[in-house]
Every structure is written in structure tokens, then in C-alpha cells.
């Protein structure tokens, strides 16, 4: 091995080792991740070996390999900070030629948990498929090709997109990656259920046949082909995989060369002509003064700030999915519709944490409890412009699916009361338990503030439930006493109660906010 390679492998080992340094919490998380990954890898290996001889083994192996390769391709886009050696711009200043650099980085990137996991899968797959001496010989080649192709794929994608990854848009994308994963999990879940109902793995065989020709799964496919004596097919599949690897390495080297010889994009960006954005305030629907100003900024942030957007999309989606899916499965109760109000009410929590350290701009303009009251009220109103119609819509949709129109006013009333209670407790805990929301990555709590976040959200939710108790009690009493024709009364009662309790909550939170401005700023500036 050349010195470059040795140095890069050492660097990778040092980075892995350094994962064990730092705070106890981080070390525990690192070790836990390691153990879980190794455990899953081992179980997968055993499971694949157990599949040996099964008719559908080849389908499963090929699909698993393809999914894993997809993971390798996507990972650098979503978690650019996951592997620091992925960013070639860090090595730009060193006097290195692309070819030794590519070789060194490729070998260095075989060190790590991800490659180990991939190795376990590939080994398991070939053991499940190989029958006969020739197949075993091909298997060794197939494992090496699979591993190298996966690693090269990740590197090539990272190098080609490094401009995107180091830019603001790329980092925004990374923040939204949690959503993609959540949606992906739903799709997988749906697919698995569909498989269960349509009679097993046989349904996947056509997909497996196609994937067996796509690198790096084609290397695994080649092992299967040799086992069945189709040497021509096997050779073609192997050559396909090798060609793909060569192509990836070439693309990667070209991207590296381009990166090393062209100017840094970060300075070019500032000189770009600005795209004209429509900022005319138009016919203003929002009220004047501080209220409208605060609402306008809050609503702009829902759309423009990736963290806020992710939180909102999650709340909106879960608030809809829970009642509607329950209704679809026929197990639902109309009262689940209140879930939407509850989920959206969570957005009122940690208002100032959502500002990050930019909260100082707000703090400089709050000099009395009244200022703080108007500020909090503006934020609550911004929230209501989305929440109120949405909660109503979800309730109406759920009601329509269950056909229980008589219960609609009652459930709406309960929703509004719950929303009011969430806004009230949210405002209060925003003032009392603020915490930082880190702007990079997918974490929503800064280290050391997790306890604070739990107190803030769960304490607040319990308090909100308690605050709703009077309205819930009225609902139960109306049902028990047989006065079900009067349940429509809950709509005005719930709405009035919700509005009243919101105002009370804001009034309580305002003096606390005004008195604790420096403490709030310190708490939200940690991210």
C-alpha cells in the first residue's frame, strides 16, 4: 500500500476511534448504535444462511442487495456529516493527485460499520445461493465486487454532489431527511402488508429477475446463475458489475479532479444576480402593528425554515393519519379527530426555541409584559390561521367517514377546547422551559436540554388534558344523563372555553416572558 493509502486508512480509524471520545452520552449512543448494527448484521447473516436451498432465496438476496446499494447512494445526500472523509474538499489543500487519492479513499472507506454490515449481507447472500465449487469461486469475487461497488457508489454520489451538500440548500435537505425516512417506512410497511396478503415472496420474483441484472445485485445474481449452470449469464452479470464499478471510479475521479481544479462555489454564490422575489405586501389581510408583523414572520417561517417546516408537516400528517386511518379500518372513534388539534397545538410549545438565538431581535423590542403579551398573541394567532381550519377539516372528514354527523358539533367543541388548552400551556412553557433547537442535522434538542424538552412538552400535554377536564366532564355528563340531543351545546361551550383559556394562558405567560428575556435567550442560543 502507498503512504497515501496508509494515511487515509489511519485517518478513518482515528475518526472511528474518536467516536468513543467526548461526552458519556455520545459515547453510549455510539456504542449502542454499533451493537445494534452488529446484531442486525449477525441476525441477517444467520437468516440468509438459513434460507439456503429455498426457492425464493435468490429473489430475497438480490432485492436486499439492491436496497442496500440504494441506501449507500442516498446516505451521503441525507447525512453528509456522517462520514467526514466523504467530503473531498477537506483534502483539497493537500498536494495529492486524483488517482492515488481515489485508491486511498476507496480502501479507507472499506473501514467502518457500514462496510462491515454490507460484508455480512453479501457473505450471507452468497452462502445462501452458492452450490458447487465454481459457484464458491464466483462467490468470493461477487462479495468483493458488491462491497467495492457500494462504497464507490457512495463516494461518487458524494463527490458529484459536494457543491450541493456544502451549500445551504443541501443542509436544508438533510434536515428534511427525517420526513423522507418516515414516509419510506410507511411505504415499506404498506408493501410488507400487501406481500403478506398476496401469498409470500413469490410475488416479488419478477422484480428479483430484473434486479439480478442491475449492479451490484448482479454480482449476487451471478452466483445464483453459476449454481444453476448458466455460466454465460453468470459471466455477463459479473462483467456488468465490474463495468459499473469501473464507471463509478472513473466518475468519482473526474468529480474529484474538477473539485480540485475549479474555484470554491461558496464565493461564487454571493455574486450571483438575485432572483426577484415577490415581497410586495399586497392587500394586507393581516392586522397592522406588532400582531400582524409577528404573524407574518411566523407564517413565513413555517414555509421557509426547514426545521419548522418539518415539525409542521409531521404534525399535520400525523394529525390527519391517526383519526382517518382508524376510521378506515373501522376501529375508529370519532373522538380520535381531537388528535389533530392536539398534534397541531404542540407547535405552540417552545416558541422562542424555534427563533434560535435570533430571539435577541425579539427581546430587544420587549420592554413590558404588554409587549410580551402582543408577541405571544401574534404567534398564537399565526398558529390558529392554520390549525383552526385544519382541525375542523380533519373532524369533518372523520365524521363523514364514520357517518356520525350528530356527534360533529360535540367533537368540534372538544377539539377547540383542547386546542385552546394546548395554546395556553404552550405559551406558558415557552416562557418557563425554553430550549434550543439545533439548526443542523435531524436532532430537535440540544445536548443537555433533553430533560427540559420533556418537561416542556409532556408536562404541558398533561396540563392541557387536565385543563380540558371541565369540557370533557360536561360531555360525559350529557351522555350519561341521556341528554344526547343537547350535545350540540358543546360546540359553543368548547369554543368559548378554548378561547378563554388561551387568553388566560397568554396573560399568565406574558409577564414571565418579559421578566426572563436574558434567561430565555441563553436557553435558546445553545444550538
Amino acid at each position: 500500500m502507498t503512504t497515501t493509502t496508509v494515511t487515509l486508512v489511519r485517518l478513518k480509524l482515528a475518526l472511528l476511534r474518536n467516536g468513543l471520545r467526548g461526552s458519556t452520552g455520545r459515547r453510549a449512543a455510539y456504542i449502542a448504535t454499533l451493537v445494534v448494527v452488529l446484531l442486525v448484521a449477525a441476525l441477517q447473516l444467520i437468516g440468509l444462511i438459513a434460507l439456503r436451498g429455498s426457492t425464493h432465496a435468490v429473489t430475497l438476496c438480490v432485492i436486499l442487495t439492491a436496497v442496500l446499494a440504494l441506501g449507500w447512494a442516498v446516505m451521503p445526500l441525507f447525512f453528509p456529516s456522517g462520514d467526514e472523509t466523504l467530503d473531498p474538499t477537506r483534502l483539497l489543500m493537500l498536494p495529492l493527485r486524483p488517482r492515488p487519492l481515489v485508491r486511498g479513499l476507496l480502501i479507507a472507506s472499506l473501514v467502518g460499520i457500514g462496510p462491515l454490515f454490507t460484508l455480512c449481507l453479501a457473505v450471507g447472500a452468497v452462502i445462501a445461493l452458492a452450490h458447487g465449487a465454481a459457484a464458491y469461486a464466483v462467490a468470493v469475487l461477487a462479495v468483493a465486487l458488491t462491497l467495492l461497488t457500494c462504497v464507490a457508489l457512495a463516494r461518487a454520489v458524494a463527490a458529484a454532489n459536494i457543491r450541493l451538500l456544502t451549500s445551504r440548500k443541501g443542509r436544508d435537505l438533510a434536515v428534511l431527511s427525517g420526513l423522507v425516512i418516515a414516509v419510506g417506512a410507511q411505504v415499506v410497511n404498506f408493501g410488507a402488508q400487501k406481500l403478506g396478503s398476496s401469498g409470500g415472496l413469490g410475488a416479488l420474483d419478477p422484480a428479483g429477475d430484473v434486479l439480478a441484472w442491475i449492479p451490484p445485485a448482479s454480482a449476487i445474481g451471478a452466483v445464483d446463475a453459476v449454481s444453476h449452470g448458466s455460466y454465460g449469464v453468470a459471466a455477463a452479470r459479473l462483467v456488468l458489475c465490474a463495468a459499473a464499478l469501473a464507471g463509478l471510479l472513473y466518475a468519482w475521479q473526474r468529480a474529484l479532479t474538477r473539485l480540485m481544479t475549479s474555484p470554491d462555489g461558496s464565493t461564487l454564490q454571493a455574486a450571483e444576480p438575485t432572483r426577484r422575489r415577490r415581497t410586495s405586501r399586497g392587500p394586507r389581510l393581516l392586522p397592522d402593528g406588532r400582531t400582524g408583523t409577528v404573524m407574518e414572520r411566523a407564517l413565513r417561517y413555517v414555509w421557509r425554515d426547514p426545521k419548522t417546516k418539518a415539525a409542521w408537516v409531521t404534525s399535520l400528517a400525523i394529525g390527519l393519519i391517526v383519526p382517518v386511518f382508524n376510521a378506515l379500518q373501522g376501529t375508529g372513534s370519532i373522538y380520535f379527530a381531537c388528535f389533530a388539534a392536539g398534534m397541531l397545538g404542540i407547535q405552540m410549545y417552545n416558541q422562542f426555541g424555534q427563533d434560535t438565538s435570533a430571539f435577541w431581535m425579539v427581546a430587544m423590542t420587549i420592554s413590558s409584559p404588554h409587549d410580551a403579551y402582543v408577541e405571544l398573541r401574534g404567534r398564537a394567532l399565526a398558529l390558529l390561521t392554520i390549525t383552526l381550519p385544519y382541525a375542523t377539516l380533519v373532524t369533518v372528514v372523520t365524521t363523514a367517514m364514520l357517518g356520525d354527523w350528530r356527534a360533529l358539533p360535540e367533537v368540534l367543541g372538544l377539539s377547540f377546547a383542547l386546542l385552546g388548552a394546548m395554546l395556553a400551556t404552550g405559551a406558558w412553557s415557552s416562557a418557563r422551559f425554553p430550549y434550543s433547537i439545533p439548526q443542523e442535522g435531524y436532532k430537535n434538542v440540544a445536548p443537555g436540554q433533553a430533560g427540559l424538552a420533556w418537561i416542556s412538552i409532556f408536562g404541558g400535554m398533561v396540563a392541557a388534558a387536565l385543563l380540558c377536564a371541565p369540557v370533557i366532564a360536561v360531555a360525559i355528563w350529557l351522555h350519561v344523563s341521556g341528554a344526547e340531543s343537547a350535545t350540540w351545546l358543546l360546540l359553543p361551550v368548547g369554543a368559548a372555553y378554548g378561547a378563554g383559556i388561551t387568553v388566560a394562558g397568554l396573560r399568565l405567560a406574558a409577564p414571565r416572558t418579559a421578566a426572563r428575556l436574558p434567561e430565555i435567550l441563553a436557553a435558546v442560543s445553545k444550538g
Partner: protein
Amino acid sequence: MTEAGTEAGAPAVRVKDLWKAFGQSVAVAGIDLAFPAGKFIGLVGPNGAGKTTTLSMVTGLLRPDRGTVEVVGRDVWRDPVEVKARVGVLPEGLRLFERLSGHELLAYTGRLRGLPGAEVDKRAAQLLDVLDLSGAQHKLVVDYSTGMRKKIGLAAALLHNPEVLFLDEPFEGVDPVSAQTIRGVLERYTGSGATVVFSSHVMELVESLCDWVAVMAAGRIRAQGPLAEVRGDAPSLQQAFLELVGANSRDTTSDLDWLGGAR
């Protein structure tokens, strides 16, 4: 410019026995300051001297452990209504609302300050023009360069025409062109009788801009007064500063005898 709080002789900023500790480390150890009104005032010191901590406490963004701060004759912590309306701040290391465009940020800040909408838009347009940001006014602040951020922060701090302006490292990481623009605006502003207090560790800049300096090191004030007085007999403020903070005696060359030697 209202002159109520800045009558002749009354200091724009008066600090008495100000203390702040973070855990074990004392960031500001009992400082007293008196900055005259209508002057360009520099707070200088090496990194970690406590400049940012001091400015944060003076502007009401950080609660002191002990001591009093008066700005334009009013106590910052007891009378925030009067003080916050009369000061402008550009802190260091704190974000802006970066997902707003430059223009939107100014519109937001001005309206939050309680200025009428039309007036805010007029002032914002002029400030953007003077600070050479008109071309980027519809771009999100998150995409601004360091110099542009400092300039938009300065515009936001000036929007309500404050009596005293506090700037923490306004020239840090700023290119010479932007620095000259910022300088021009600040000079015009102090010319009208307003007070500018800014922190820096670039002595040449402080020397060329300020009438009055306070030298800070390790949480204490080493010297304060008119520039000529602090400079004393030293050939430059840089020399005077190095002597004041006791960094002149260190000989850094003896250990690096290989540097610049035979290659």
C-alpha cells in the same frame, strides 16, 4: 435626535461594579465605565477579554451577577422601556431571522419597534441603498456573506434612529469595501450627536475611528479615556495596548529558529 438623556456632561453609558461569572470562570470582574455622549467609543481587548459579555450586559441581553448599568441616564434593568427604545444593537455570535430576505428583515424589525409601516419601508429602502444592499434585498439573509450580514444587522440596529448604538465586532470578517461603507455610515451618524460604542481587536481601526477608548483584558478595564490619553507616549495604540495587556515582553522567535532557515 432627542437630547433629554444626553445633556452636557451626562455620560451616554455608565457602568458600576459590573460582574459576571460563567461557572468557575469570571468573564467580567467588577468593571466601571463612563462613556461620554456624542463620541465614537472603542472597547478594545484580546479575544476572551470579556468584551462581548460586557456589551451583552450593557444592552440587556445578559443578566449581570452584580452591578448597575445606566444608558442615557436610565437603568437598563429597572427601566427597560426607556432604554430599549433608545439603543440599537448589533451583537456578535447571535443569529438574525435568516429565513427572511434583507428587505423583509428590516420591515419586520422596524414594525416590531413600533414604527409606522410607511416610515419603515422608506427608511429601509434608504438604508439598503446606502449600505449597497439594494441588489440583494430580496435574497434570504441565510445566503448573505459575512460582510452583508454585518451590514443588514447594522441597518436593523439603525432603523429606529437610536441615541446610542452598540456594535460587537462590526468589522470582523468584513471585506475592505463593506468596511468602508459601514465606516461612512457610522461617521455620519456620530456627526449628528449620537454615540457609537463598538468592540474590536484591530487597533489600527480603533485608532483611526475613535475619540475615546477603553482597554479591557481578562475581565478588567486596564485603561479608559480619550484616545490620546490612553495612547500616552507610545508611538501607536497597538504599542500602548500591548504594554497595557502585558503582551510585549514575550519573545516568540527563539523557539522557531528553523522557520525560514535552510529548506
